[in-house]
């Protein structure tokens, strides 16, 4: 890592940066700004985002570096690679539960991002990967994805849903009777089709579940490795966002992860003087002296470590409709990187 490799120094040599934070805090904007900064510093970044480029961020200049994640097509492509038998793949695509998982299931976007990140990182075509996670529960979903998927595919309950062979021992028969009754009640409440589709889904998935779990295990190792992945937590100073950010930091802390950068975005300064103070304090890496924000950071001290840089970005009232608007944020971050 060279002296001038500011990005490398800030993220402690990691080449994956995950932007997480409360909804509306500016995660996507920060992710794009970091991407733009990385390009300016001679890096070749790839930004994973679920925000449609036609919608909020119509930046043509950044288009070659943005990978817009569409959950159904990403998951379908992943399954196609896993399935050696075309019939299994077709069977899964026909399964209505799989279709729901791929399109509307909470977490499908995060899973798709995780898989795409893993494949792109293995391919190594780019040298800096920025992940813009959707929604606020995002760190929970990606950090627990492997455990959650393992629970689904390795649960004891699965053998009752899809019974294999039959035993004639009394305890087994009693349990089987109990489960048959439960299944009947559930199918009365949720519809018989739901259980049939669930069974069909797991039967089709059986042959590829090992490969599927393996990919998630590897992706899990990457996103939890402090040498590979670095986290940026973005928040705005409203009361609700502060509570949720604390929750996010606690969740990261549970896996021994401390963010490299904590960004207090959209800070409204009451005067020009405050903005100058904010810039000065952010550069000095001390606490911002804007009194309203001091207690926010203080409350988070135990959830961040000495390597976590704190940065304040002021509120810009006009929207991000072109690259010049994005540059305002880049101009704010760039000197901060050099000074730190």
């Amino acid at each position, binding site marked *: 890592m060279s002296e001038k490799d500011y990005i490398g120094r800030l993220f402690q040599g990691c080449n994956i940066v995950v932007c997480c934070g409360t909804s*509306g805090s500016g995660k996507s904007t920060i992710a794009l700004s970091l991407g733009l900064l990385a390009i300016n510093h001679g890096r070749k970044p790839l930004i994973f985002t679920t925000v449609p480029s036609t919608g909020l961020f119509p930046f043509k200049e950044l288009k070659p570096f943005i990978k817009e994640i569409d959950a159904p097509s990403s998951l379908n492509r992943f399954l196609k690679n896993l399935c050696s038998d075309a019939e299994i793949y077709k069977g899964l695509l026909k399964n209505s539960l799989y279709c729901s998982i791929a399109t509307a299931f*909470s977490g499908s976007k995060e899973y798709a991002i995780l898989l795409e990140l893993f494949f792109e990182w293995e391919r190594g075509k780019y040298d800096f990967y920025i992940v813009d996670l959707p929604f606020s529960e995002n760190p929970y979903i990606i950090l627990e994805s492997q455990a959650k998927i393992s629970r689904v595919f390795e649960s*004891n*309950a*699965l053998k009752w849903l899809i019974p294999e062979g039959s035993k004639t021992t009394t305890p087994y028969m009693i349990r089987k009777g109990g489960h048959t009754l*439960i299944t009947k*009640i559930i199918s009365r409440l949720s*519809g018989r089709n739901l259980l049939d589709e669930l069974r069909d889904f797991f039967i089709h998935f059986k042959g590829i579940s090992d490969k599927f779990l393996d990919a998630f295990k590897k992706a899990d190792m990457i996103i939890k490795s402090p040498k590979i992945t670095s986290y940026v937590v973005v928040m705005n100073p409203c009361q609700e966002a502060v509570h949720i950010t604390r929750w996010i930091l606690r969740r990261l802390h549970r896996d021994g992860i401390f963010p490299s950068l904590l960004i207090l975005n959209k800070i409204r300064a009451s005067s020009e003087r405050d903005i100058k103070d904010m810039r000065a304090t952010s550069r000095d890496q001390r606490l911002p002296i804007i009194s309203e924000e001091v207690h926010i950071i203080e409350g988070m001290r135990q959830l961040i470590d000495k390597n976590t840089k704190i940065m304040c970005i002021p509120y810009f009232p*006009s929207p991000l409709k072109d690259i010049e608007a994005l540059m305002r944020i880049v101009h704010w971050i760039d000197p901060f990187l050099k000074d730190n």
Partner: protein
Amino acid sequence: MKKSRRIEGALSCPFFNAKIVEVESPLYIFTGKGCAGRSTFAASLSILLARQGRRVIAVELFPLLGKTSVSRIVSTQPPSIRKRITSIALHAERVAKEYVLRKVKVEILASILARTELFRYILSAAPGLKELLCLGKIWQLCKDGKRMGYEAVIWDAPPFERLMELINIPLLAAESTKGSPVYREALKIVSLLKDRSRIRLFYIMGNEDSMLIENTITVPSNNMGLNLTPGIIIINKWEKGSEAECSNSPDSTITFNHRKIPVYRVPYFYKTSRDIPLMIIEELERCLKRIT
């Protein structure tokens, strides 16, 4: 004559009323951009209605922090207001247990069923089932609201894009849950959400997103093919212009889906976190007065 009187009597009892009048309590939904002030406005409306002597119930789906945001904001209010506001968090497992109890009707059986590994497994593995149950619960609250003593249901909903995904779940799960009580109830909430006479959808957004207003609403709305139209758009934390201009701004309507939607600007109240609900309540009252 005798027969018709009996019918009249039967119709006037609460049980029959509930069946005839499909929804008793109106549903107010607060959605929009993240951190734009959805919960603050939801809490403000709860307080406003409570001040008028009405009892309301505020719901939130799967709150991250356990406690609902509305309950946190309302906790600063005097007890006379607080007692008229019930705030509930809808957690999938609790809603599922309640649902099973409502259908099975035997408490012991319902609680045994809800505790079984297979039940919990299906709840977590079947995509969309949790969301379906929670949507059904919201519809249930609207349907039985008045019998339970609530005059309005206020839903502190997720950001608009997530809300659209959530509403789309019953439609996606149609094939696998068709004919089941879960599906029927969830479908009713979808029809309720589309019915502008029974719901009021508040779209709250920040000052910086106001230029992209059409994109933020049309893109997710058209993607899902639902064409859910906001009833009111509130641009919160507005900085430009004086407070007097806020609610009487000349560009206070927007045409969306061939409908004119009123747009209101609520000023940014700087560093007065404790008083924010009071100021917002006044702004909200002014918005509602102009509509009604």
